[in-house]
């Protein structure tokens, strides 16, 4: 029970950091050209989405658990 709260807290805080960093990098790289940079942009976007999912899971909005 206690451990779960620590994990949730960590997921939310670190998730916010990661989401902000990925979307900020995406914003900065928006005008970069070239194949690999476009792939990077897509991947940064998905990374940000993943971080948001982790935040929501940490807040128990999605992926409900019994506790």
């Amino acid at each position: 029970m206690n451990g779960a709260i620590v994990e949730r807290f960590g997921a939310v805080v670190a998730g916010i950091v990661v989401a902000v960093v990925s979307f900020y990098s995406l914003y900065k790289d928006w005008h970069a050209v070239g194949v690999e940079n476009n792939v990077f942009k897509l991947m940064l976007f998905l990374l940000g989405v993943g971080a948001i999912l982790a935040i929501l899971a940490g807040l128990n909005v999605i992926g409900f658990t019994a506790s």
Partner: protein
Amino acid sequence: MTAATLAHDAHGDVDQLYIETRELRLQGFLLFLISDCVLFSSFIFAYLYMRNSGQGWPPPGIHRLDVPFAAWNSVVLFGSGATMHYALENFKHGHWMRYMIFLLATIVLGAGFLAGQGYEYTHLIYGEHVTWAGSGIFGASFFTLTGMHGLHVFIGVCYLTVLVLQSSAGVYTRGKYFGITAGTLYWHFVDVIWVVLFSIFYLI
């Protein structure tokens, strides 16, 4: 980066041959990632197919997976994606020390993710007696997919370690660093696959 811009900020160490083979290698590597993506997609299809043909999920007798821990562990892996991005950025701008720090941070976070997965496996196998072969389609799909992803992360950690060694030996210069680009692409790919796996195993 196009061939032209690369040639433009060349530092005397980039020849035409490198620029051209770099294009080929980049495309080949992206195509490899696409076919790897199909490999994961097939297993994901198999998982969703089995999940929807059974009697509810998780099957009777098996607890839901531990979401808070997985969320925390996922953030560790996503964070490593962000540090890898900054490692490449810093290398491009010539900040060698910062590049090294971010690269090492990526390795540490990736290894941390693997350790977390190991902890989760141990907990499942010894705590809840959910095993690969003995727990029906749940164990089969969960351990196969996450294990395959874990293997990819492990390969990625090895690749990045090689990058550290190569960079220390001065293999990469400001003009020639395709190995680092490929490593970044691969690492991002592994992260993004985990976004999908995390959603389908823990969140739905």
